[in-house]
């Protein structure tokens, strides 16, 4: 088995064992949506223009929470040193961890999306296909940069505070592209009008995944 498959399997099994990150991220997403809805008084106002931003802010925050958990697990009992002292290539450790996190993000979003539809009175219908495409591309970008930042935070004494400060500015292009694309998809605009956002997301994913797999070796060791 390749080291990629071994680490990916380990990440998924570890998450499945406790379902800790999944539960935390789901409950957190729901809470944030509730807070937003109360703060903006959804019942009385036309909230539709805010919906894409609301959705993505929620996903961003819950992603940060999941990343914090993902390196917390490597810190306990210094389990991370087992991966690093193995012959496994650091690039494939990075790719495996990012892939596992991508699956986690998608799971959280697919479970929580119907609830958002209900709470925020969204009309998804035929927008579902394009919306899933946006989710997938944005999540790849979030995972690629997120795992790098988590790798930095893991070894830093004050990693918990560093993570959000480093993560969110680096993700701003994703936030812009994802909210715009989500808005266009929900408004059922023809894709040709907004495919530049998909291209931007796609290029971001390629560039930062490649950069991550080269750079990870330099941040994994103490």
């Amino acid at each position, binding site marked *: 088995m390749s080291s990629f498959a*071994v680490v990916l399997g380990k990440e998924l099994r570890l998450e499945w064992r406790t379902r800790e990150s999944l539960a935390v991220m789901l409950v957190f997403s729901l809470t944030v949506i509730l807070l937003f809805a109360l703060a903006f008084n959804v019942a009385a106002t036309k909230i539709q223009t805010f919906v894409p931003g609301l959705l993505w802010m929620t996903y961003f925050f819950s992603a940060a929470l999941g990343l914090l958990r993902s390196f917390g697990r490597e810190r306990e*009992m*210094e389990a991370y040193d087992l991966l690093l*002292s193995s012959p496994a290539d650091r690039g494939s450790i990075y790719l495996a961890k990012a892939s596992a996190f991508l699956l986690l993000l998608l799971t959280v979003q697919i479970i929580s999306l119907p609830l958002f539809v209900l709470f925020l009175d969204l009309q998804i219908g035929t927008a579902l296909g394009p919306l899933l495409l946006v989710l997938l591309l944005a999540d790849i970008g979030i995972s690629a940069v997120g795992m790098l930042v988590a790798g930095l935070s893991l070894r830093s004494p004050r990693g918990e505070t560093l993570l959000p400060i480093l993560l969110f500015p680096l993700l701003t292009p994703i936030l812009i592209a994802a909210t715009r694309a989500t808005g266009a998809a929900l408004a059922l605009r023809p894709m040709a009008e907004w495919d530049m956002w998909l291209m931007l997301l796609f290029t971001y994913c390629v560039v930062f995944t490649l950069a991550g797999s080269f750079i990870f070796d330099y941040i994994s*060791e103490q």
Partner: protein
Amino acid sequence: MPNLLTLQQVTKAFHLRPVLRDISLSLRAGEKVFLAGRNGSGKTTLLKIMAGVMRPEAGSGELAGRRMFSPDGRWRSKMAYLGHQPNMYPSFSARENLRLALRIRGQHWQEQPFLEALDRYGLAGREDDPVGTYSEGMLRRLGLVRMTLSVWLLALLDEPGSALDIAGTQLLSAAINQWQQEGRAVLFTSHNIAWGVELADRCLLLARGVIGQELHRPGEQQVADLLREDAP
């Protein structure tokens, strides 16, 4: 006999304070080497660098003919590291942790040798318990099971004897002796000087980031005196 491992001028600093200065050492196959030093002398740092967990600022090394510290991680396949911490995932069972440890080294998982080794180290019947429920001594024993099942030429053991009871320490000594007889090399640290000097062929004294003395089969008193002299 050619050296299994050579380190040349390995240097590591924290906040520009040198922890290891120009460490050069070599190990041959079939050697048991005791790395002794006071608290904070850099023993753990040296082992972590050799394990690929820490990055040296300078220096080079060769392990079984492969260049160490290179981005290509294949050199690490000849080495196995048992850290001061267990290096395991608490929510995984013993079996899951060991299966992961072997697979990531590119080895195949075999149930039978695992159960036998578990039995030998007194952990039979605990294979499905999460290791988070293990005591410190049991985690040490499980670490030894991991070393037993892994394929390597050089073992790096950081305080393998801590938290072990008398029976556990005997199992550890026996394991190290057996590995030596198989022609493998073991580098270990310990604060139990009597145990260390009795077991080892050679003792390296690490003081203030340099290997000050190299002694062949020293007496316990000799090592203890040298360590005391080193007091700041």
